[in-house]
């Protein structure tokens, strides 16, 4: 039988997490099909059809799925679940929202946020904020899995999957979308950016995040934050990197004014290179940073901005 991946998208473009989840799905066992559920999302299905290794796209294009509301996604996924041995979704806030409903209805346990596929039924996943790694084996029967996308490489382009329309399932009518307030940013998305610069409580105010923004603009980096900075209201919740926020694994993670609580480290310690600027030389962040600079960020950041300008960034 086959493996189904649920696509992550915004009705216009396919999120990178999908191609990364396809990599995990291919390791679980092919053929791999991708379900694109959305509203006016044909372009997303076309993009998903180009992922190498994907055989078929199921396109459920209906207003009901515009926001991928969990209660509506559940019967849609269940309508095709019989045909699959395994159903995988990226562990985004969307995947985390709908997939456990599917597992519950199928009476199978969900395996959350896998980091590695050891064999088609055995997986590694983080527990205790990534302070321990659990190797877990699924029982016989259907496997329901969310995938930590940053732990997998993106599947290559070059596929040419067929696109098949999938009829909408009945609307359970439990809930409806009301509104959303999305952060607008010209910068790359936090979880797929090559460089992430995060600020912590040391920034002291939302206004001071402009010091980070300037450098982020020069390096085409995404801007993140520690929980302390979000709780203090300096930046919105979607900036949060950590155990309960976003997990990032960029080429470079620059932590500024972040002490390095274990919950924050859980969200960034798989970054390739970690650099930290903090005025406290005993800050725990320095224990995992490849390059540490003990300095006052209010001097270091403007200096870095000038230095980068000088070097042509």
């Amino acid at each position, binding site marked *: 039988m086959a493996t189904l991946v649920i696509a992550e998208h915004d009705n216009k473009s396919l999120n990178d997490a999908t191609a990364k989840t396809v990599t995990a799905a291919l390791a679980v066992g092919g053929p791999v099909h991708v379900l694109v559920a959305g509203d006016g999302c044909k372009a997303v299905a076309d993009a998903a059809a180009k992922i190498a290794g994907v055989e078929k796209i199921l396109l459920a294009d209906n207003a009901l799925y515009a926001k991928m509301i969990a209660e509506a996604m559940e019967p849609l996924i269940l309508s095709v679940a019989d045909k699959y041995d395994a159903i995988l979704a990226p562990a985004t806030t969307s995947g985390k929202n709908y*997939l456990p409903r599917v597992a519950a209805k199928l009476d199978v346990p969900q395996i959350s946020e896998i980091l590695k596929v050891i064999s088609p039924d055995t997986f590694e996943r983080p*527990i205790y904020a990534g302070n321990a790694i659990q190797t877990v084996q699924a029982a016989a029967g259907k496997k329901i899995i969310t995938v930590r996308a940053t732990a997998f490489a993106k599947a290559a382009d070059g596929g040419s999957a067929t696109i098949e329309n999938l009829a909408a399932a009945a609307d359970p009518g439990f*809930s409806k979308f009301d509104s959303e307030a999305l952060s607008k940013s010209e910068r790359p998305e936090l979880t797929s950016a090559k460089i992430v610069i995060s600020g912590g409580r040391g920034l002291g105010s939302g206004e001071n995040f402009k010091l980070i923004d300037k450098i982020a603009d020069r390096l085409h980096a995404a801007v993140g934050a520690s*929980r302390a900075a979000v709780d203090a209201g300096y930046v919105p*919740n979607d900036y949060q990197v950590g155990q*309960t926020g976003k997990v990032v694994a960029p080429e470079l993670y620059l932590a500024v004014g972040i002490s390095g609580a274990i919950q924050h480290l859980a969200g960034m310690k798989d970054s390739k290179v970690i650099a930290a600027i903090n005025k406290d030389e005993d800050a725990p962040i320095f224990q995992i940073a*490849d*390059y540490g600079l003990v300095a006052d960020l209010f001097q270091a950041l403007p200096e870095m901005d000038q230095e980068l300008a000088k070097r042509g960034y």
Partner: protein
Amino acid sequence: MKVLVPVKRVIDYNVKVRVKADQSGVDLANVKMSMNPFDEIAVEEAVRLKEKGKVSEIIAVSIGPAQASETIRTALAMGADRGILVKAEGEIEPLAVAKILKAICDAEKPMLVITGKQAIDDDSNQTGQMLAAMLGWGQGTFAHSLELSETSAKIAREIDGGLQTVEVKLPAVMTTDLRLNEPRYASLPNIMKAKKKPIEEKTPADYGVDAAPRLKVLKVTEPAKRSAGIKVKSVSELLDKLKEAGAI
């Protein structure tokens, strides 16, 4: 309206966990245990709703060893009215927890279940969603704020791109995110009062649920360690090093 608040006993937030040498799990001996922080937020939200007169009774439920009664006492001291302890040893997977909670909801008929979005031990983030599906209810996960009426809940949710607000018909399940509220500390008089509040003791079998784990944990290991690198003396040196490493 009645509110059910499931709470889990977990290793305290501030404890650095240690993996056992035989790779069988994490060392729980002599480690401080507390209520899962997200569940504390859930209890606080329920108590605030009661203080506003929107909720008549709060039932705290915990599924776990006998000591989970302490976790229920904490909820009672914060303002919950009574407790249900479902005694079960060992690892209880979210699927089994959701089945037990469903049976309790069938009996108690709450209009709202509020619980943490995830427990900080297994980091599964499943129970609330599974429970909602089993009950045939709507859900508002990762709640940032709540407006409750007699028939519906307007819940702003913390999502990857920002905030999304959904309107969910009651009865419903809500799971809490960090910014929903700041939980109170129980006062000494309330801790004393909580000792007199009733806790009913049950077992999974009472609810006809087989709580045996369905997944097999083969081993638990330490994550790959990162070691500290070098300290640089200046911004300029930092940029040189990052350039050398190909990071910028």
